[in-house]
């Protein structure tokens, strides 16, 4: 974790400026931290919701978190690959991230299990694959 590197390669991910792909291909979730009160927020925002400071820095968030809860979604707006697993992941940064949980059988998921950041194709728009960040169970 630390300051987001300057030499990044932008990829057309759905999450826009909330995701950064490093030169080596590593994916990071990008949040912000308020320079005044240290509050962290995901996705990036221009003003701190705690103290209203606009003096905020972009940071790479932790790529590991714990799965707070999830639901297998069978009915969703057009474009998503259903069924998909929707989940909330709590990061050690005290940031909660909504994410698709991929690479796992729903029956194998457990509350508070360790998950790690990945990317995945989540659907399609006008025939083009829609890719974004996702979380997947962390291999022991």
């Amino acid at each position, binding site marked *: 974790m630390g300051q987001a590197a300057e030499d990044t390669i932008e990829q057309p991910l759905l999450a826009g400026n909330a995701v950064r792909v490093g030169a080596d291909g590593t994916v990071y979730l990008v949040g912000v931290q308020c320079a005044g009160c240290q509050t962290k927020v995901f*996705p990036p925002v221009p003003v701190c*919701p705690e103290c209203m400071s606009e003096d905020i820095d972009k940071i790479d968030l932790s790529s590991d978190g714990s799965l707070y*809860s999830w639901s297998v*979604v069978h*009915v*969703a707006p057009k474009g998503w690959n259903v069924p998909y697993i929707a989940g*909330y992941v709590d990061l050690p940064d005290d*940031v909660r991230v*909504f994410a698709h949980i991929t690479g796992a059988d729903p029956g194998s998921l457990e509350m508070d299990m360790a998950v790690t950041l990945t990317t995945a194709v989540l659907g399609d728009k006008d025939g083009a694959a829609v890719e974004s960040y996702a979380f997947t169970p962390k291999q022991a």
Partner: protein
Amino acid sequence: MREVSVVGVGMVPFAKYRDKTLAEIGWPAVKAAIEDAGVDKRDIEAAYCGSALGGMMSGQRVLKQLGITGLPIINVENACSSSSSAFRQAYISVAAGVYDVALVLGVEKLTKFGGGTLPLEEEDFEVTHGLVMPALYGMRARRYMHDYGLTDKQLAGVAVKAHKHGSLNPEAQFRNEVTVEEVMAAREIAQPFTLLHCCPSGDGAAAVIIMSVEKARQYTTKPVRVACSEVNSGKYMTGFRDMTTPEITVRGAKQAYEEAGIGPDDVDVAEVHDAFTIAELLYYEALGFCAKGDAAKLLEDGETSLGGRIPVNPSGGLLSRGHPIGATGAAQIVEVVRHLRGQAGDRQVEGAKVGLTHCTGGGISGFDHGACSIHMFSV
């Protein structure tokens, strides 16, 4: 602040009115409330219209049908809490002495979207990543099941009760009873919910006439008193939040009970926001009808069924009466007022003196719910 009374109520049956406009759906509810109050439409001094997705000037579009124009018409949007929020605005204006007679309207036409999950705000980050309301409530349910040992079968029991009550309500969208087995075998929507765990999409309208208590006495010998009126927004949280505790409802209930000087043990009938089965159980606890973790037992013991200690959603609730979202808050008030007047027909809660309505609105990132409104009424 002056005491405020409900003098007239009316609604149209919740259903799918694909061939009607929002205005055509809305006006019969308003006319029914005016006739119920026995008031001249020209005596209405202000109107407050709640609609979430009705579009620009929903109130004017409905009220011009009845020639109720030339007065202040305020349109209120607060997602599912739209018309309960509109009620509060009307209440404040009458309580403050600005008006003696005000109209509250809730109206919605969801069939214009063609079905599926409720369309949410597309600027919202989580929505852009596939958050849908059934998934949000589904995650609440799964966490509650994990933390408190709630079973799928117990959860299905909420839908069974809702449909049983709804079968007695001529204005309910669903009037069929269902079994636990039918609920569990229905089409999957978002785990742990099948279709019967989810409120239906539909259309409807409900209206309420309120007056200062002095004015109300000119129209009725049995006005229903507004015992408290409460609206809150959720607290925006960027990190952990306990999804088994609906913080906005807990906070709102505390305020509402303090304002009313009435506690949860005194409530005879309640209409709560059971958009999905889990919600009703969470709200038993948040509203203080039982202790944390005891909601399934309260349901299984029949305490919240008609004939029980605190019947919840005698109308059938959102699950069975239906949930045309902007109309729901007003419809809950219509239902509770009918019980307090002894006019609720086959589903009447006998001897009801105190009623509570609770309506939340959600669907944006970082909130348990964006809005919540709690009202209490007494006779």
